[in-house]
């Protein structure tokens, strides 16, 4: 798990397939372990899908009994697993935190810092609409008049950003402030490269997003 991979990918330069793969592995791991949905990296996913497609074509040229074919297939299965699990994890969060995510995403889209891919955003909106429709049809439209509202704020589930997570620092980051919830006893810690910690997610959410720490 290399830190440089994450930084490279923002630029429009050629990166090798193994770097893309490592990046996706790290993204998957972070997505699995963070309480909130993380910014999408569709560029990486599409790049890897392209690699898979290319490889599948090559495998088809090999005789079925070729040992190399089964090795390549095994590797592709491993990569497909990561991609599927990564995307499924995102869908699970989109469904669970649907109302919060749709609201936040509307604002993020305005500022061009969207976390969801266009497909994911469409999925989230459709999902929310379908739930609203179902609840109205089965319950809300049948209860007394002043109780019929679909109270979106009461229904919203918010990710628990204060929950504790394990992390490993990819590079040294100094001066992380662990805010005391009573306001007067803030503590400051340094994350040295390679060190591991358990702390509240909200203090290091930005570092997860910019790849300076890895959730473990």
């Amino acid at each position, binding site marked *: 798990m290399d830190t440089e991979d994450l930084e490279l990918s923002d630029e429009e330069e050629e990166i090798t397939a193994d770097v893309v793969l490592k990046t996706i592995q790290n993204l998957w791991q972070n997505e699995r372990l963070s309480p909130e949905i993380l910014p999408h990296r569709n560029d990486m996913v599409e790049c890897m899908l392209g690699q898979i497609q290319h490889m599948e074509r090559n495998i088809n040229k090999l005789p079925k009994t070729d040992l190399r074919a089964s090795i390549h297939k095994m590797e592709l299965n491993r990569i497909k*697993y990561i991609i599927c699990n990564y995307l499924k994890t995102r869908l699970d969060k989109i469904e669970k935190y649907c109302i919060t995510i749709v609201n936040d995403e509307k604002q993020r889209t305005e500022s061009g810092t969207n976390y969801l891919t266009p497909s994911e955003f469409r999925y989230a909106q459709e999902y929310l609409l379908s739930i609203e429709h179902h609840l109205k049809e089965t319950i809300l439209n049948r209860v007394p008049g002043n109780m019929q509202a679909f109270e979106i704020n009461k229904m919203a589930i918010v990710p628990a950003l204060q929950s504790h997570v394990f992390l490993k620092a990819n590079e040294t980051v100094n001066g992380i402030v662990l805010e005391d919830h009573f306001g007067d006893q803030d503590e400051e810690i340094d994350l040295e490269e390679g060190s591991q910690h358990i702390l509240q997610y909200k203090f290091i959410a930005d570092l997860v997003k910019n790849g300076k720490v890895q959730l473990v």
Partner: protein
Amino acid sequence: MFGEKVIELLKESERNRETLSPFNDEKIRQIIEEMHILFKLNMNDANATSENKSLWTTVQVRHSALERNKRCLLAYLYDRINKIKTLRWEFGSVLPPDIRELLSDSEYDWFSKYSTNLATFMRSLGQDIGYSGIDLTENLRPPKSLYIEVLCITDYGKLELEDGDVVMLKKNSRHFLPTSECQTLIRQGILKQIT
């Protein structure tokens, strides 16, 4: 007592955490009826509170009961939605009839919408690069070629495996074979698993 029926409804869900029970249409109807009664009582008393202040507390208690019923009814539906979702991942877009029966019509509509939405999403994956989508319901477990060691009991001859490998099964020879591909031969007594 207000709100008792709705608790029974939630307990019903709670009892079967993993599985879906039949949609309890009748109980929901009763709870909604209770809500209408409470609502009517409140409307009458609310008009009278200007003369009789002591009614105010009664009105508030009824209002809380109404809110609670609403909240619990929605929780019941939401809990079922989560269970219905997993059906899509397990069975695909066509439900076996015995499971279909457990859903209300509105739930079945919801299931169809969920199913379509998910299918649209999966088809969109990789579309920009000419990919025809990915089925996310596959590949959800870490791939393992699960092999077991087996002992051959009789001379069987050649066995071609799914990956194209050909194994010669001779009496007393030992092999590592994919678990899934040698179950039949084990049942037939041709192979024996060595643990």
